[in-house]
């Protein structure tokens, strides 16, 4: 990376603009992403496994193995992406561009759902809408004597809703970052035409934030199609399978090749959607909303609509954050998972080892593993957030500044794929590729470094998507005027682009941080006992049936995530004085 940029800066005779940068970026993501991906692909190609392709695609099995799950997955992906963009976009507008009361609080709440594991959201759904199909405890509504039909308890509808409730905060974060950069004169020009708020929102604000919307839609689409927990919890009882549950199952029962084929097909299908989204925003049209003429930041006055809109926002936030958080916290306090709100005990948090409970496991605050795992996890989170953001920034910058061209298309697609690759496949590929020494590079196996590199590659799509959306809104002449001063690439990046895009970049960093804190599948293959991480501990407990401990750890992760977000918000407002109202 370093040599390329300096090359770009020093080259006497620059080749086509952006080419060195593109090649550099391509090289890095080629090594970090394409390499592992190709390895996954090759896993499916040897003679003994090649049959997996025909099994999956053209055999009597393919209906249930591929087509039905694929249909469900696409419905989920598209549905969730639409829902998330709508809800996230609405909240982002409210928080960023209007004078709705409690903006900060709403803004914080709207970033939370993503930090709450989706299983908690699914459980929260269950605690309200679960019917007696599966048995066990029924939900609140049935408790009131209201029969809940299966379609509302299980299957597509609840999965859609739960995933939307879980992922909309991704869309919110990306879109909010983009809206924060919209010059108010664009909006004012629309106001002058006599357009109503809704019209301005739909006709001006959303379209200028289109890159962010496409990013938000892409991220939430990828999230929805690769989410396992919600469809497994809510879909399986009515035999609804998605690509993710199938994929997981196939790997779990030892049919790895088929699993990988499914993963590759999922990637291919998603790539089509991504290509489409990219197509929309890579045309001639510009989204430069931060211009060199210093536009003002101004808020819409909502007038009479203030309170009703506040009410809507509050309902969304309460349902999608407060309820799951309560369920999650309750499940770390209640000894019985079937009665979440009775017999609460702090044992799982504070208790000393008591042989009568959970085989003598001490509460999380007394558990030396958890203490050390917390610090490892946080450092891993921080490091990966930094490396992921840096790499993401390079990719995002390249994509935003040099939108057209085949190379950009390739970079864009590659930089998105890790979202769709099962972590276990990615992790295994990483061990195989980087475990052994390569040339002068030492073997990374079992090192923190490998965890960082893999985590970076795995999570870079988040920073790419969030960063690119915002960078695309920075008018090109701002960078050009810096070029004229003789400033090198990195100098310009750090002094001009990063501060202007900081909100988007910070959003990407936070998402990466949260993701790596919670991610299991990738980490579980790469971690070493000397570097225990919280997610692995939570998995340990859950697999032993100590769900309260697992949930307590999840709450710890949640608290750290919220703290990180608050901190970032803090820095954010401090670091962007020109955006003050």
């Amino acid at each position, binding site marked *: 990376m370093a040599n390329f940029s300096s090359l770009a800066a020093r080259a006497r005779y620059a080749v086509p603009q952006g080419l060195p940068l593109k090649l550099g970026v391509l090289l890095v993501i080629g090594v970090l992403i394409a390499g592992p991906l190709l390895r996954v692909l090759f896993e499916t190609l040897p003679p003994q496994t090649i049959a997996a392709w025909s099994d999956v695609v053209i055999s009597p099995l393919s209906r249930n193995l591929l087509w039905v799950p694929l249909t469900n997955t696409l419905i989920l992906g598209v549905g969730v992406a639409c829902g998330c963009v709508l809800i996230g976009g609405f909240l982002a507008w409210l928080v960023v561009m209007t004078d709705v009361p409690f903006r900060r609080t709403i803004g914080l709440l709207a970033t939370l759902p993503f930090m709450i594991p989706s299983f908690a959201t699914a459980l929260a759904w269950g605690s309200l809408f679960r019917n007696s199909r599966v*048995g066990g405890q029924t939900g609140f509504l049935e408790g009131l004597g209201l029969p809940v039909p299966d379609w509302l308890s299980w299957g597509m509808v609840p999965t859609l809703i739960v995933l939307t409730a879980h992922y909309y905060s991704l869309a919110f974060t990306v879109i909010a970052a983009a809206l924060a950069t919209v010059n108010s004169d664009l909006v004012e020009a629309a106001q002058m035409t006599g357009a109503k708020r809704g019209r301005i929102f739909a006709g001006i604000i959303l379209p200028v934030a289109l890159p962010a919307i496409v990013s938000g839609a892409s991220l939430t689409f990828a999230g929805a199609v690769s989410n396992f927990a919600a469809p*497994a919890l809510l879909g399986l009882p009515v035999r609804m399978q998605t690509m993710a549950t199938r994929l*997981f*199952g196939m790997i779990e029962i030892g049919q790895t090749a088929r699993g990988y084929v499914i993963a590759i097909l999922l990637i291919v299908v998603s790539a089509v959607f991504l290509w489409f989204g990219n197509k929309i925003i890579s045309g001639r049209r510009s989204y430069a909303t931060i211009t060199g003429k210093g536009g003002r930041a101004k808020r819409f006055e909502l007038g009479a609509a203030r309170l009703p809109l506040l009410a809507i926002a509050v309902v969304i936030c309460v349902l999608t954050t407060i309820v799951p958080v309560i369920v999650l916290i309750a499940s770390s306090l209640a000894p019985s998972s079937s*009665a979440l709100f009775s017999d609460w005990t702090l044992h799982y948090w504070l208790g000393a080892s008591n042989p009568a409970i959970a085989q003598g496991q001490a509460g999380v605050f007394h558990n030396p593993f958890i203490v050390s795992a917390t610090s490892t996890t946080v450092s891993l989170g921080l490091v990966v957030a930094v490396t992921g953001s840096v790499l993401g920034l390079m990719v995002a910058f390249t994509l935003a500044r040099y939108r057209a061209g085949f190379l950009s298309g390739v970079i864009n697609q590659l930089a998105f794929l890790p979202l769709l690759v099962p972590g276990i496949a990615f992790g295994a590929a990483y061990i195989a590729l980087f*475990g052994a020494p390569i040339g002068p590079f030492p*073997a990374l196996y079992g090192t923190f470094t490998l965890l960082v590199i893999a985590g970076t590659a795995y999570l870079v799509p988040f920073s790419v998507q969030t960063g690119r959306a915002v960078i695309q809104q920075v008018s090109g002449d701002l960078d050009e005027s810096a070029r004229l001063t003789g400033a090198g690439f990195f100098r310009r990046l750090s002094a001009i682009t990063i501060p202007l895009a900081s909100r988007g970049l910070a959003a990407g960093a936070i998402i990466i941080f949260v993701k790596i804190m919670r991610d299991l599948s990738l980490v579980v293959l790469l971690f070493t006992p000397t570097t225990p991480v919280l997610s692995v501990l939570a998995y340990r407990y859950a697999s032993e*049936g100590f*769900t309260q401990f697992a949930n307590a750890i999840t709450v710890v992760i949640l608290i750290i995530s919220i703290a990180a977000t608050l901190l970032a918000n803090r820095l954010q407002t401090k670091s962007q004085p020109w955006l003050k109202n």
Partner: protein
Amino acid sequence: QDLDSMSAQELLPLAQEEGTVTVYSFTSRIAAVEAAFEAKYPGIDLVGYDASSTEQIARLNAESAAGIASADVVYISDAPVVLTELLETGLIEAYVPPRVADLVPDEFTSPLLAQRLSTKVLMYNEEASPDGAPVDNLWDLTREEWNGRVVMVDPLQRGDYLDLMVEFVLRSDEMAAAYEAEFGEPIALDSGVESAGMQFVTDLFANDVVLVSSTDDVNAAIGSLGQSNPPIGFTSYSDRRDNEDEGWALQVANDVAPSNGIIFPALLALAADAEHPAAARLAIDFLMGDDSETGGEGFAPFYVAGDYATRTDIVSHPDAVPLEDFSAWRIDPAATAEIRQDVADMILILQ
């Protein structure tokens, strides 16, 4: 000298020289073992990696591709997959400590050493059925009465449930007999169905078996207190030990024809090219328990009701049905591995 034939005392100095031993374990109870091991054999650091069987397999495969020997001991479930994916490919090797060779029945020493047995068996809610299991024959589950009221984990999501399905097929003769006992007529197979066992699986799915994603979901569904008409389902017998904590009333249905489910091994093996061969053997020896009735420190974490030691000299947990009275089928991993994928394919079509 051949390490395989050495006793623990002979291995110890070599192991101490090696200084460390890495165990890949599918259960986090390895942490307790680590403490006990290090207390007993100071100077040897036992390093435990927690990872599910699937992850262990993925990891071992990837490591071998990269030429890394990280694991010394593999403690793993999912026997049928392990046989094909790890043993046949030479990634792991069998080892039976000479000390226990005679104490463990042959079926549990070959092809790999089994340390203990776990179960996936039919369980019911004893609060709702205080007089014993509501069914006495597996085929009861295919009756209208149990439509939508049998719960299990999706066998295409979890290997052990798939093994359970495979076992039905492997035991087709017994299933056919049970059918006749239940319905008073010989079984008639649907077209395309080749065995009584497969017919059972087919009928079970046709009877709207409810699939969930984890055993805890099964337990909560079946076991939760206060249900008037709880479902029934397949889960781990050992989960009964959580009844009190969780507010469950799980009980095993032991008197079920022809069997209530499967009992299957947790395996211990040496990683091929282990870097610490002596310590690895010592660790396996330790994990097999000492000569006391309960297996002592090394086995303590696994001495729970519902799990059974393979060592005949370790007595079954007092709170559980003794192993000899337990009606579950012992799986034959090799036979299972052979038809596992075919059964999975058929279930796939049923879904």
